[in-house]
């Protein structure tokens, strides 16, 4: 398993539609400084710096090169990563490899996106990921794929449109309590159901926004972490599963369950003796790019029985004061600076374990949490974080 690795510092910028007064480097710098401050260290204490960002979303590649003074990576080892929506999760995994291997003791990871700089052409960048022969001609983006998730779920369980709206209202309420979230909307179920259809049954208010922001995390080895902080959060285990474009192009399964999510859950739960995740884990900060994804994917992640997830939000199970809170931060539905989005899931889960989430701290005691990343397309990281070492 390698050396044990802890999260010892967390920093985020405010996420919003535009950061017009700061460039990408300056934005990264803000998150990095906050994470170092939270860890009570300086850049001199950092052995390696890793950057994550979506290629072409700001019209540049290899952003780690042009942002080096802001990230603190000058003359330090590092990597730049882009695995689509999972980028922030891939960075947590990569940071873990750097520390667990014994090569480095303290690693700073920074995910960032200034989506406003794509000038509304994010899908043009996304479509460059697709097979040029079989999928690129259709010029689809995330909305179509998520519409199929929603339509398939509704068709299979005949639950109507309301559950997606209830989940969206829950997310909006949580985001109002999170000082860093982008969309701060006071919503009702009717507001969601009256919002414009993007691709049926996905409506405008179901879908995540395009945000600008950065998140940074400091990871440290067990020995360092115990000296640095009284509240280390341990990365107990994680699984990465790739499926890529196989679902849409070749999936033998007509119901587009996310096999990469299920595969990662099976492996993670088996390795960690989890047979009843809602009882054995305290909460889940899930990568939920649309309200319906939270519902369908709770089942794909084997959190509850098939056909049950659409009832959970209505019953309050997944609320801040519920038995199994899901996305207390407001989730991706409220905040989506893509290169940072998946890292925010891990950061928010860690804040909940530390008890430092502030206004959106969940009511129950959090000793363990799941955090997921999704994107890529069809590629999952699933993390298990804990307050204590096993």
């Amino acid at each position, binding site marked *: 398993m390698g050396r044990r690795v802890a999260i010892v510092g967390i920093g985020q910028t405010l996420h919003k539609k535009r950061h017009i007064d700061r460039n990408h480097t300056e934005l990264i710098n803000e998150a990095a400084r906050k994470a170092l401050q939270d860890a009570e260290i300086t850049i001199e204490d950092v052995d390696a710096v890793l950057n994550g960002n979506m290629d072409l979303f700001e019209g540049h590649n290899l952003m780690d090169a042009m942002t080096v003074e802001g990230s603190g990576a000058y003359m330090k080892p590092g990597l730049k990563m882009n695995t689509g929506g999972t980028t922030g999760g891939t960075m947590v995994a990569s940071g873990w490899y750097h520390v667990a291997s014994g090569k480095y003791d303290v690693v700073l990871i920074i995910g960032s996106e200034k989506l406003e700089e794509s000038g509304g052409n994010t899908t043009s960048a996304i479509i460059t990921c697709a097979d040029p022969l079989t999928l690129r001609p*259709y010029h689809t983006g995330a909305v179509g794929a998520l519409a199929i998730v929603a339509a398939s779920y509704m068709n299979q369980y005949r639950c109507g449109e309301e559950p997606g709206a209830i989940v969206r209202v829950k997310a909006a309420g949580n985001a109002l309590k999170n000082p860093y979230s982008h969309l701060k909307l006071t919503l009702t179920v009717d507001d969601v159901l009256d919002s414009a259809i993007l691709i049926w049954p996905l409506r405008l208010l179901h879908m995540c926004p395009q945000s600008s922001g950065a998140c940074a995390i400091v990871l440290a080895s067990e020995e360092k972490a115990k000296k640095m902080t009284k509240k280390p959060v341990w990365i107990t285990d994680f699984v990465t599963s790739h499926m890529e474009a196989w679902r849409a192009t070749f999936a033998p399964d007509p119901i587009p369950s996310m096999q990469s999510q299920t595969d990662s859950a099976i492996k993670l739960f088996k390795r960690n003796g989890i047979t009843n995740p809602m009882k054995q884990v305290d909460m889940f900060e899930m990568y939920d790019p649309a309200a319906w994804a939270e519902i369908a994917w709770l089942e794909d992640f084997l959190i509850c029985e098939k056909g049950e997830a659409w009832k959970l939000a209505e019953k309050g199970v997944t609320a801040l004061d519920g038995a199994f809170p899901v996305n207390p931060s407001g989730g991706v539905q409220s905040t989506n600076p893509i290169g940072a989005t998946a890292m925010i899931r891990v950061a928010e889960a860690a804040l909940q374990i530390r008890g430092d989430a502030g206004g959106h701290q969940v009511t129950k005691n959090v000793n363990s949490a799941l955090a997921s990343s999704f994107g890529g397309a069809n590629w999952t990281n699933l993390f298990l974080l804990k307050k204590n070492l096993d």
Partner: protein
Amino acid sequence: MSQETKPKAPLSIEGAIILPYRYAAGGVMSRFLIALRDSKKTLGIRCSRCNMVYVPPRETCLHCFGRMDEWVELEGSGTVESYTVVRYSLPVHPMAAPFAFALIKLDGADTSLTHLLGEIDLEKIKVGMKVEPVYSESRKASILDISYFRPAN
């Protein structure tokens, strides 16, 4: 000099990147696309170990990592497995909205092909409905040499 670093009217600079490319289709997809262009034939490829037929074809089986070289010719007709209706138009879309994308499992295939539905009442699309291909008059060795699928008679 003022110590103020936050300008009152920050600048942003516009630009655009155009990305021309030339993609090698590869041996397997070249054969598939040439058959579509020259003889309106849909070819699949079978993994004899997994007994699965892939359309569009790939050289390597997803499930067993085996090399596939057993070609099969399909009728071209199939079944709608899932669909969604697009209600807004973008200049890059292959059709003007409203139109439908569908996952279509071709008869004889074990995989779903992402394609378009046409000559169809969008309100009457059903999962499980039979569809047949409509070929483009000017075929260019593209997946859009099938213009769309329409309800089969």
